[in-house]
Structure formats: C-alpha cells, structure tokens
C-alpha cells in the first residue's frame, strides 16, 4: 500500500521534473563558433574500433582550438552523440545535432555505411555535407549526382580493386589468378556487401573463383564461416569486418590453422584492436592502409603538448599514433582544412553546411600544406573535384609483424577503367530512382 502511494508520487514528480527540465534550453556554441557534430560509438560490439577513431577526431579539433585558436580565429564547438552503430540511433543523433550552433552543423561523419545510407536521403533537404572517408556508398564518388556525399580517399570498390591487384602482383600477374579461390568473409550489412560487385567483376575478368561468406552482426559467431574455409581451403581470404568481428576472425583463422599471411583485411580491418587480441598468432596478417598507418609525426607531438599536456585529451596518451586514432585525426583535419578553404571564399566566420560543402569540393591539399599540418609521410597530395568526390584512389598494404604495422607494398592505384563505369552506372540508377537532375560539373 505504502509502496503504491510512493510509486504514484514518484511518477508524478518525475513527470513534473522532466517537464521542467525540457523547458530549459542550453546554449552550447557561442556566436562566433563553428559547430561540428560527432557521431560516435563508444559502447557496443563496435566500440573497440569506434573509440580510438572518436578520440583522434576530438583530439585534433581540440588541438586546432588550443594551438591555433580555432580556424582563422573561429573556435570549434563539438559535441558527441552515441549511435552504437545502429541506424535509427544515428538518424536520431543527426536530427538532434543538425541545427546546433549559430550556423548549424558543419558536416557529419557517421563512421557507418548503414547510417550513411539513411542520412544520404536526408542531407539533400537539410543541406549538410557527409564526409564518409573510406566508407559509404561506392557510387557517391560521382559528385554530379551525390552532391552532399564525400567518400574521401576512396571507396570499397577501390579497396577491393587494390587488394586484387596486389594479390595478382604476388602471383606474377593478374592473368595468373585463373583457377585460384578467393574468399570474402564479410559483415552481413551494407558495409560488408559493398565490395561484392567489384569482386564479381574482377572474378569474371581474370577467372578466379569468388566465395562470399557472410557473418551476421555482431560477428562473434564465425565458427560456421571458418569451417567452410577449412573445407574449401581458398588461396586468399579477404576480411571485410568491423569491431569484434575482426579479432574473432583472426582467432578463428588460428583455430582452423589458416595462414594469416594469406589473409587481407580492408582498411577498416587493419588496426591494433583487431590483431592484439589474437596475440602472437596474428603475426603475418595483412591489411589495407588508407593512406596512413600507425606512427607518430609532427602533429602527434603537437597533440601531446597542447592537448594531453593541458589535460584535454579524449582518450589515453598511449593510443596516440595508433591506426584508427590517426584515421580519426585525419578525418578531422580534412574537415578543418575544408572549412578553412571555404572561409577563404565566404569569410572568416562560422559557416553553414552549404558553404562547408563548397569547401570540401574545392579541397586541394598539396605536399606543402600536408607538411604544415604536420602529417607529411602519412598522406599523399590529393584534390577533390565535382567529378571525383573521393580525391584519391590509391592505398598500400601493411602487415602486422607481431608488434607493429610494416608497409609491404608500394602505392597501388585502383583501376578507374573498371571502377568508374560501375560508379557512373550506379549513380545514374540512383538519380533515376530519386528523380534527381545531374549537376553540371563543368559549371561549378
């Protein structure tokens, strides 16, 4: 009886409190600040890979604020929102953050192909660019159709192509791949399914057999997949996993005694959280490096001094310089440089999403600028254009030697003669479905 009365009163009080709290409005960004939203996942099965990326991103933005006083004096206000790699939570975070700050959100980087697919529909109306560095829709390279998507540094078709070219090189030429078996162990989501069309095209051209083996989210159950691999003994295994799926895959490969030297992961399956859980057995595992690998440069020294030195670091000091930390840092750098480019045209003030979009499309990082931001050796110079929203289509392979990542290949350029027609076809199909008019690239 008393508990009933207590409950009733508690419910009433909670409702009143919620109402009162909802009425207050908190002002996050001041008038002269650029708001940058961060969609992160620091919990859930993808957190091991999401956390270092988010830390790198946040640390670089803090560095720009602390060391440079912002972008040309405009400080960056950033806010994280937890998505847990789930599409509906990603959409909710997008709705929550898109209008914050004096001019709205600068750009979104959801770090999830699934969320990218959902947000691609919405950014047309809201006019906010999506920077999907190394992921997202492969056809969004075509800026004529996908005005707001920027898959900077390349897409999954580029990644798959580079891997096949490298494997061809190992065998003495792409024609020597005839009769070989290549298995794709992929995360059963839009992310994992993206490379399949390109791999099928390459299999058709060079005569190798492609086995596609899906692994259900979150990817801890892979015994059936690796049993298939043990039975079929493919010559190479391409790993398209994320989160705990990567480390589980390597451990399962150890269990079925599949040589790790014949495993090649995409650039999202080649970082420390993937190989460290397997310990010494992960030695020899190869993966793509999206321009950079692990390692420290001038920018890391600055981060340790200006960010961690002042106690404003987002994560642990030891993680600075790891693969995914660097990737998040580079993603933030690309956004900052785009905003800087856009400020050159629109003025040194907080910019709207449309203006930032122009900045990203006009981004031109030469060697001099790369050295100035302290990332020489990590990136190659590249230029974004309306025709090519990726800006660069090359990558290298790095291998885990037990303690660190070592580059084992030169820069390999993805074959645009195969990929670009596929991109054009898919983009035209999307434009027809959505009734979009193609933008005239020559005009802008």
């Amino acid at each position: 009886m008393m508990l009933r009365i207590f409950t009733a009163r508690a419910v009433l009080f909670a409702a009143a409190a919620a109402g009162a709290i909802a009425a207050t409005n908190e002002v996050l960004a001041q008038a002269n600040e650029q708001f940058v939203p961060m969609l992160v996942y620091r919990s859930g099965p993808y957190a091991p890979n999401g956390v270092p990326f988010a830390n790198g991103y946040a640390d670089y933005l803090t560095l720009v604020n602390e060391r440079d006083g912002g972008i040309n004096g405009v400080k960056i206000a950033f806010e994280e929102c937890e998505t847990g790699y789930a599409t509906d939570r990603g959409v909710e975070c997008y709705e929550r953050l898109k209008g914050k700050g004096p001019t709205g959100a600068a750009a979104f980087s959801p770090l999830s192909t699934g969320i990218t697919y959902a947000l691609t529909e919405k950014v047309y109306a809201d006019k906010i660019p999506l920077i999907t560095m190394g992921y997202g829709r492969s056809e969004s390279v075509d800026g004529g159709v996908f005005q707001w998507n920027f898959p900077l540094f390349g897409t999954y078709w580029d990644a798959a192509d580079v891997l096949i070219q490298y494997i061809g090189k190992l065998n003495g030429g792409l024609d020597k791949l005839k009769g070989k078996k290549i298995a794709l162990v992929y995360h059963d989501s839009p992310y994992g399914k993206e490379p399949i069309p390109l791999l099928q095209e390459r299999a058709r051209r060079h005569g190798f057999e492609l086995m596609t083996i899906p692994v259900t989210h979150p990817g801890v159950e892979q015994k059936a997949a690796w049993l298939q691999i043990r039975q079929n003994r493919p010559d190479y295994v391409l790993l398209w996993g994320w989160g705990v799926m990567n480390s589980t895959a390597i451990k399962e490969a150890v269990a079925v005694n599949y040589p790790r030297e014949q495993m090649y992961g995409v650039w999202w399956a080649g970082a420390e959280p993937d190989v460290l859980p397997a310990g010494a057995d992960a030695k020899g595992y190869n993966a793509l490096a999206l321009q950079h690998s692990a390692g420290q440069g001038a920018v890391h020294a600055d981060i340790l001094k200006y960010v961690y030195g002042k106690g404003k670091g987002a994560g642990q000091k030891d993680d600075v310089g790891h693969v995914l930390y660097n990737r998040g840092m580079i993603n933030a750098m690309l956004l900052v440089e785009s905003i800087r480019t856009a400020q050159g045209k629109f003025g040194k003030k907080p910019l709207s999403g449309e203006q930032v979009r122009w900045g990203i499309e006009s981004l031109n990082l030469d060697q001099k600028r790369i050295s100035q931001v302290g990332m020489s050796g990590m990136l190659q110079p590249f230029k974004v254009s309306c025709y090519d929203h990726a800006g660069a289509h090359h990558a290298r392979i790095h291998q885990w030697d037990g303690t660190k990542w070592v580059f084992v290949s030169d820069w390999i350029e993805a074959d645009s003669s195969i990929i670009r027609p596929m991109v054009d076809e898919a983009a035209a199909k999307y434009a027809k479905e959505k009734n979009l008019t193609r933008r005239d690239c020559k005009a802008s």
Partner: protein
Amino acid sequence: MFYREAGQFKTSYGADQAVFPILQDQIFIGLWLALGFVLVPLVSTEYLLKAILIPFLILALAALGLNLLVGYCGQLSLGTGGFMAVGAYAAYNLCVRIPWLNPVVAFLLAGGVATLVGIAFGIPSLRIKGYYLAVATLAAQFFLDWVFSRVAWFTNNTPSGSITAPPVTLFELTFDTPVKKYLLCLSILVLFAAVAKNLVRGRIGRAWMATRDMDVAAEIIGIRPMYAKLSAFAVSSFFIGVAGGLWAFVHLGSWEPLAFDVNRSFSILFMVIIGGLGSILGSFLGAAFITVLPLLLNQLPQWLGVSISTAMISHLEAMIFGCLIVFFLIVEPLGLARLWRIGKEKLRLWPFPY
C-alpha cells in the same frame, strides 16, 4: 467530484454501450485528440516531431498489435520485428514493382501480406503454449531476418542490401514534411486504435480473452481454439505489418534488415508488458515510456550541466532503463494502465476519501 457520472442517464442502448459512456471521458478524449491533431503540430520543433513523436506513434501501433496477441489472447510472441520487416519489405516491393499503386494502399496490402505470414507462423500455437510458443515465434524472427538478408528478390537485387523507400503520397499530397508525416501516423493510429477497441469489446475479443484465461474451458463452452488463436495472430500481424511499413517509409526512409532485428521485437514486447497486458491504453503508455525514456536519459546529463562521456551515458542509460523495468514489474506488474485505472477510481471519489 469531477468524475461522477451522477445525473448522466442513458436513453438508448447505443449510448449505454458506447466506448466512452461517461461525458467526462468523452471530453477528455476530445481534448487529447485536439491536442494531438491541432496543438502539437503547431508548437512542436522538428526534432520533437521526427525523433520522438513519429517513432512513438508508429511503435504504439505495433505495441497495440502485439497487445492484442499477447495481452488479450495470451499467445506469447517474440516475432514482432520479423512481422514489421514483412510489412516494410512487402510495402517496398509493392511500391517498386507496381508503380501506380498508392503507397498508403500499399501499407494496407503489406499488412495483408503480414497477416498471411502471421497466420503461417501462428499455426504452432495450436499445439504449444507459453514459452515454447515464444521460441517458435523467435524462430520466425530469425528466419525472416535471414530471408530478407539472403533472398535478393526482396531487396530488388540491391547489392548492398540497403533499400530506400519511395516517397509516400496520397492523391496529390506528398507526405514530406515532419508535420504531414506526424499527422499521417496519428490518423492511422487513431483509426486502428478504434478498430482494436471495438474488436476486443466484441465477440472476437471475448473469444481471445477466454482462450487466454483458460483455453481448455473456452474450447468446452464452444469457442473454437483454431479460429480464436489464428484470428489473434492475423489481426495482430496486420497491425504490426502496417506499423512496419510506416516505420520503414515514414521514419527511417532507408533501411537494412538489421533495423528489424530481435532487439526491436524485445522492445515492443517490453512496451506491452510495462504498459499493461490486455489494455489498449497500456500500449500507448508503454510505447511512450520506452520511446521517450532512453532519449530523456541520454540528454539529462547535459540539461543538468553534468559532463559525462557518451560511453558512460550509454551504459548508465542501459542500467537505469533495466532497473526501471524491473522496478515496474515488481511494484505494478499489471503495468502503467493499472496505475491509470487506480487514478481514475480515486478521481471518482475525489476530494472525498471514500
């Protein structure tokens, strides 16, 4: 004092058997409808509509459907996410393959497809009960997940598996702004709630409740168990299928099979349990609780000015959410609807103690 029905005399059977016989109830419902249709669209922000109200309305519809099956007919089902997926993919395929078909009609037809699938997976209920039936419906959930992931025909042979819904139109009107989407969902929900309320007050609803309470006794007095149970599955799946179509077309816009996984099934089951099994109002209260509470918990630290990392907020959200569910089940196992009914009883006597 306010809720007495003293002085209200019914002069016809129709008035006596009305869904809301008391005048105060009728005014109350009228106010709520006015609030929902008129006031909320005027004062709500885009975020409130898109992220809170529209998901609440669609999930309330799904919870309503599940409540008919679990609360009124007593057949425990964990396949709600799968049936929502059936509705979503059926609506998508109908819209894509029959371009002249109106999307709202497509939702209803998709509900029909979900009905057939629901009946098919409801057949085990004729043999098994309780937790065993829950497992059978869980198998339905995983099977449907697998089908939409593996069989390319359902996703129109999209290589990535992620499909985008065409815009929802009805006679020249395109539902593209949040306000229009909200009003569409609210209209469909009000209509379906009226249908559900009348169903449960009629012969079919009483057959369901008799089957729930003691199915052997119900069979003995002449209620045919096959019709009762399969009709519950059919009507429930129709509601859930339409909710799935709305969720995919109106809320998400673009989705992959993961959007309708087993976590969705569990969350709708929790809505029904917390809201109140066997109560139409309970579906709404449960849906509001489960849709709004995580968002509230997520944004509470910011409003209070306490800075916590997003990971910690996520973990706290999961913990507090779980604790609240356990608390409600201990303190009020009949759900929030029971709390409301107690409140109504007290209102009839207020300000007098007895």
